[in-house]
């Protein structure tokens, strides 16, 4: 079976800054993989490389066995951006944001059909935002904002979901809602790559974990990856003892 994501020895620079150093990542279908690393370790860069926003200097990237471009065109890639990448004052409602997830299913003028409305309503229901659907996107709490973007990903029906720190500034309840959803996505055959600083919750969330520090230090079972000596490699100290907040 082809891998959902296959990054093979990708090296990425920003100008002279080395952001990824021969990083290799494999993501199997039907699994959740947690991406762990310090600020600046290259997590967002890895996401952008998988999406084809950045081209690796060397190495190659396959998504569903084909190029990132083909994968995007087939609607296979859903992306939840890191918080600061969003204009929260934009005059757009929660429902409209989720509807943009359906654009790949729509025609030239992106006019929603019945199926699109149903998918959007269902996605809003699943993240528990149906009652706030009409609100402007900035008028949500931090956790609700995240759930809105997760709903967009769900509505898209992509089989690969990339989430860049969806738990930043999110309370336990929202985190649990999102975790449960991602598990369901994986159980239905979807693949999830998620960067997070919440190390304590990692074993419940993910089947696999990746330790990133420009290089992929290791990829494997979360329990194994979270061993103090392994974390020390990535963080320089044991972050579990600091309450997991990196």
């Amino acid at each position, binding site marked *: 079976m082809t891998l959902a994501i296959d990054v093979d020895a990708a090296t990425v620079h920003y100008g002279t800054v080395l952001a990824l150093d021969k990083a290799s990542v494999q993501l199997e279908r039907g699994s959740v993989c947690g991406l762990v690393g310090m600020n600046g370790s290259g997590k967002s860069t890895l996401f952008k490389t998988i999406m084809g926003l950045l081209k690796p200097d060397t190495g190659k990237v396959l998504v569903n066995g084909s190029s990132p471009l083909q994968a995007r065109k087939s609607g296979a890639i859903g992306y939840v*951006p890191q918080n600061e990448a*969003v204009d929260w004052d*934009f005059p757009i409602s929660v429902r409209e944001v989720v509807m943009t997830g359906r*654009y790949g299913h729509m025609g030239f003028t992106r006019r929603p059909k019945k199926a699109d409305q149903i998918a959007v309503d269902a996605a809003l229901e699943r993240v528990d935002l149906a009652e706030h659907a009409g609100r402007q996107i900035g008028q949500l709490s931090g956790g609700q904002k995240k759930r809105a973007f997760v709903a967009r990903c769900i509505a898209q029906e992509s089989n690969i979901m990339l989430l860049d720190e969806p738990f930043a500034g999110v309370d336990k309840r929202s985190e649990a809602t999102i975790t449960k959803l991602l598990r369901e996505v994986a159980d239905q055959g979807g693949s999830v790559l998620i960067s997070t600083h919440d190390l304590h919750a990692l074993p419940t969330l993910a089947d696999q974990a990746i330790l990133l520090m420009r290089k992929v230090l290791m990829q494997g079972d979360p329990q194994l990856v979270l061993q103090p000596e392994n974390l020390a490699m990535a963080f320089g100290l044991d972050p579990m003892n600091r309450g997991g907040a990196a």
Partner: protein
Amino acid sequence: MNLIELLAEPLSYTFMVRALAVTVIAAILCAVLSCWLVLIGWSLMGDAVSHAVLPGVVLAYIVGAPFALGALVFGFLAVALIGGVRDTSRLKEDAAIGIVFTTLFSFGLVLISVTPSHLDLNHIIFGNLLGVSAADLWQVIILGAVTFLILVLKRKDFTLYAFDSTHAHALGMNPRLIGAVLLGLLAMTSVVALQAVGVILVVAMLIIPGASAYLLTNSFGKMLIIAPGLAALAGIIGVYVSYYVDASTGGMVVLSQGAIFVLVYLFSPRQGLVAHRLMLLRRRKTLEAAAK
């Protein structure tokens, strides 16, 4: 003279009917586009492109090509030069914009001054609403209709580009292409609006309506109705007032838009300055009452 006579009298002159038609078309088109420009943060870009099309229009006149073609070429040239200067030097974008558009604009001025022609500098710089010919009107109608149609049919894509271009990319769209199309439409719109208010004031029509609408609503769909509505209203008021007080027509049109912005800025129900102050006052009163 009653109100109906007041409104009807100017319409007995063909030049006034044409002036009104061009004003309303240009105002609506600019206003629709301005909704995206304001949200993407392209106000300065609107300024730059609308000035930079000048040499294109003059060259098109000299070789007998359509104005729109010349404007498009120079609109894109300006955007490419701005991007080039920004990316290959340590200058920030505002400096790059300032350098590129003033240089191109000056090039246009020089071209006009050395071209023996009927091309009247004043008309291009300040607009020539009262001298619109039938041919001018047709050009405005056709160009305006095409631009308007593309903007409206592809509005969802432009809005997604403005809101979250990374998501557009993830869906397999081409954000760079969407941005380029929007800039092309900006150049076309500049040609239309140039007829009405002239090169210098086009930028006002490209910013004020969208900015006013943004202060009035939290829905982009409503902005796309409110902005052209306000702009058309301001345009009509401007033309009539200029007729009766015998003042600069283009100037009066933009002045009306500015006046409407001031009203919105002060009295918008949610975002307005007055509503905001009142809310603070009321809140303080309730707090004081609670403290007693």
